[in-house]
């Protein structure tokens, strides 16, 4: 006989078992919720890292074998599958803004009851839905902020979740939402903390860099790091040319694809064209012209590889724009590029102010170094130059000779000399080398060495011998001309186009009192005759300065020619450099040749030393309180 109580007992037993199971699952769920809470407060900032734990707890608690957690990225407007069971890789799912709004309207979305407004979204999610076999979606949110979704697969042994399970799921979803929000907050704090630290750290660091190139490199690197950019550049202004010049790019290949990769130069000062013709170069111009930040969206043109650019002016101490600092393509985790924000502009603008100080410091330091180097070079050049000027002048039988050299301002290139030739003749030379500093001093040394070599080696000396034996002045002319060409060639080979020397050479035969002269572009010396008349020597036959052109061109332009004059007792020859005739007084008047003639005539009857002093006093008296920057050189030859 059957026990009539059996169905009841079985029913009671089943109910009891179900209740026990539910109780067990509730206890398990509470324990897992505690675990989930611990994960949340574990200090692990990265949600993606903890998401697998959250998924495991969710699936275990609800007795579901398959599922996924998706995290929403507002800037990318997509959902990233951060954890899935089974563990597979899925492409991010695009979510349109209106779809986000619709998802926020539903606490749960069942596979069988998808709202019409979300059909497209779920159609795009087909691969994920099929792989995981998702039956129920739970949007994750805190208030109105959409944070992601949980997708759950088939429920084990049942079609739907019971009411208490739905409540549990709601609690789990809320916890996971908090975890995502916490992760975002920590990431944001970390990022801002990093940026503020870098901003504070970078200022003293870049200001310590004294090399302009190193400062430019560091400024760009720090800006790139500070803004999470993947490219950067520094362009500096050249106000005299009204142009921006590229000084540093990161990476080096930034301009590789543009036509200007060999050195980008952008003229500014012009008005930028109206949109839509505005290019990235126009944006950079306007940053300089208006002194305000500019933005150039990606793909505007190929300059800078079509990157999304933000540029800010770099202010100098006096308010001028020193240049512009550019960053390109702000990165986001996951490799996507996100637009620069208003906060980014403020941050880069603040950094650019520090960069301005650093760049100016480096340039000032560089200028100071160059000035110190120039000063040392000038000192060396001065020593060389002084050594080239004779301390004393020789006694020439029947003649008086006096010289004066006064360096005024930077080292110049004046030179004079009186060289005794082996045959008892004399060579008098005066020259003015162009330029200043070491190069001028070395060119002068080259000229002197070449001259002495030529005079003592053969050349004019050989001709002189012929002159002595044959009285062949034509041969001497030819030899002097040849000497001039040799010196021209020597100086042309040793200097640059801008380096040359005006040169006047006189060959004196004290036995015949014949002065044979050759002029290479120098101020013609003044001959004051004993009777008070005067003439300029070499004025008619002046060739071009030495070293300016090669010999073949010299022959085409103006050949060197010699001439001779017969000196008589009381004749005075005044050799000088342009520092004499171009002396300026306080009224900006030049001393000029006329005053030299007058002064020379006034003192012609004195001895050479007195003439030198008279002429020097005349020039200095004319100059008065005015500044003078050119050397002053006088060489006086007087026939007794």
């Amino acid at each position, binding site marked *: 006989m059957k026990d009539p109580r059996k169905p009841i007992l079985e029913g009671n037993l089943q109910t009891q078992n179900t209740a026990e199971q539910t109780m067990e699952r509730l206890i398990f769920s509470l324990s897992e919720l505690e675990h989930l809470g611990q994960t949340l407060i574990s200090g692990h900032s990265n949600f*993606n*890292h903890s998401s697998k734990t959250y998924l495991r707890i969710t699936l275990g608690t609800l007795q579901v074998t398959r599922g996924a957690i998706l995290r929403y990225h507002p800037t990318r407007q997509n959902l990233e599958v951060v954890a899935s069971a089974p563990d597979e890789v899925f492409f991010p799912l695009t979510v349109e803004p209106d779809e986000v709004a619709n998802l926020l309207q539903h606490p749960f979305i069942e596979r069988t009851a998808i709202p019409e407004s979300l059909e497209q979204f779920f159609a795009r999610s087909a691969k994920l839905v099929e792989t995981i076999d998702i039956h129920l979606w739970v949007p994750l949110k805190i208030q109105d902020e959409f944070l992601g979704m949980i997708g759950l697969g088939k429920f084990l042994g049942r079609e739907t979740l019971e009411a208490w399970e739905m409540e549990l799921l709601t609690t789990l979803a809320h916890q996971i939402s908090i975890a995502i929000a916490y992760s975002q907050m920590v990431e944001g704090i*970390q*990022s801002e903390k990093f940026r503020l630290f870098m901003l504070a750290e970078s200022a003293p660091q870049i200001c310590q860099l004294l090399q302009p190139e190193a400062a430019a490199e560091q400024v760009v690197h720090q800006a*790139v790091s500070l803004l999470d950019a993947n490219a950067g550049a520094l362009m500096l202004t050249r106000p005299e040319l009204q142009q921006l010049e590229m000084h540093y790019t990161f990476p080096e*290949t930034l301009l590789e694809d543009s036509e200007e990769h060999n050195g980008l130069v952008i003229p500014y000062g012009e008005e930028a064209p109206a949109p839509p013709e505005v290019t990235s170069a126009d944006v950079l111009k306007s940053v300089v012209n208006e002194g305000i930040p500019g933005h150039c969206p990606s793909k505007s043109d190929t300059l800078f590889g079509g990157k999304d650019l933000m540029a800010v002016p770099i202010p100098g101490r006096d308010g001028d724009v020193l240049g512009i600092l550019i960053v390109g393509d702000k990165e986001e*985790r996951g490799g996507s590029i996100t637009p620069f924000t208003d906060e980014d502009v403020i941050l880069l603008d603040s950094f650019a102010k520090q960069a301005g100080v650093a760049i100016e410091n480096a340039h000032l330091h560089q200028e100071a170094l160059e000035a110190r180097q120039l000063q040392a070079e000038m000192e060396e050049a001065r020593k060389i130059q002084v050594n080239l000027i004779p301390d004393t002048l020789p006694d020439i039988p029947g003649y008086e000779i006096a010289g004066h050299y006064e360096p005024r301002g930077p080292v110049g290139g004046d030179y004079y000399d009186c060289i005794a030739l082996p045959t008892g003749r004399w060579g008098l030379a005066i020259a003015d080398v162009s330029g200043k500093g070491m190069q001028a001093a070395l060119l002068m040394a080259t000229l002197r060495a070449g001259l002495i070599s030529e005079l003592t080696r053969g050349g004019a000396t050989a001709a002189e011998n012929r002159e002595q034996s044959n009285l062949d002045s034509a041969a001497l002319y030819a030899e002097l001309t040849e000497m001039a060409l040799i010196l021209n060639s020597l100086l042309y080979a040793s200097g640059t186009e801008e380096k040359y020397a005006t040169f006047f050479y006189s060959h004196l035969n004290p036995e015949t009192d014949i002065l044979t002269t050759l002029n290479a572009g120098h101020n013609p010396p003044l001959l004051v005759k004993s009777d008070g008349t005067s003439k300029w020597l070499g004025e008619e036959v002046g060739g071009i300065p030495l070293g300016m052109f090669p010999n073949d061109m010299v022959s085409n332009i103006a050949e060197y020619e010699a001439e001779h004059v017969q000196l008589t007792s009381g004749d005075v020859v005044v050799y000088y450099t342009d520092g004499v005739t171009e002396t300026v007084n306080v009224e900006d008047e030049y001393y000029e040749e006329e005053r030299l003639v007058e002064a020379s005539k006034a003192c012609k009857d004195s001895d050479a030393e007195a003439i030198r002093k008279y002429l020097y006093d005349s020039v200095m008296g004319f100059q008065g309180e005015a500044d003078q920057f050119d050397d002053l050189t006088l060489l006086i030859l007087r026939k007794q």
Partner: protein
Amino acid sequence: MLNKFDIQIREAREHAVIETSGYLNDALGEQLAEKAQELIQGGYTQLVINLEQTTLINSIGISILIEIIEALTEREGTLNFCGLSATQERTFRMMAIAKYAGIFPDEESAIANL
């Protein structure tokens, strides 16, 4: 050096060294995270990251380094850094990375202190 990035792995019996070169941003950081993950999953819990050739790091690079620390901490592993510039070392201390990972001047001392 900053214009190219690269990752070198040197595996030893008990530890592995990851050496990066280039700008530690998202691109290099993701590669670094992937390599570190492979090493951790392969059983390595003692890692050294040599940043001598990485003079530039952005906030994404920093967050990736923090994730590697977290992943190792979960397995009770150790991470030491070496080859840091003075600025990087200050950054690591300020970002609390130095609290969970060692900082050493060179690879040898970083390995010795794992």
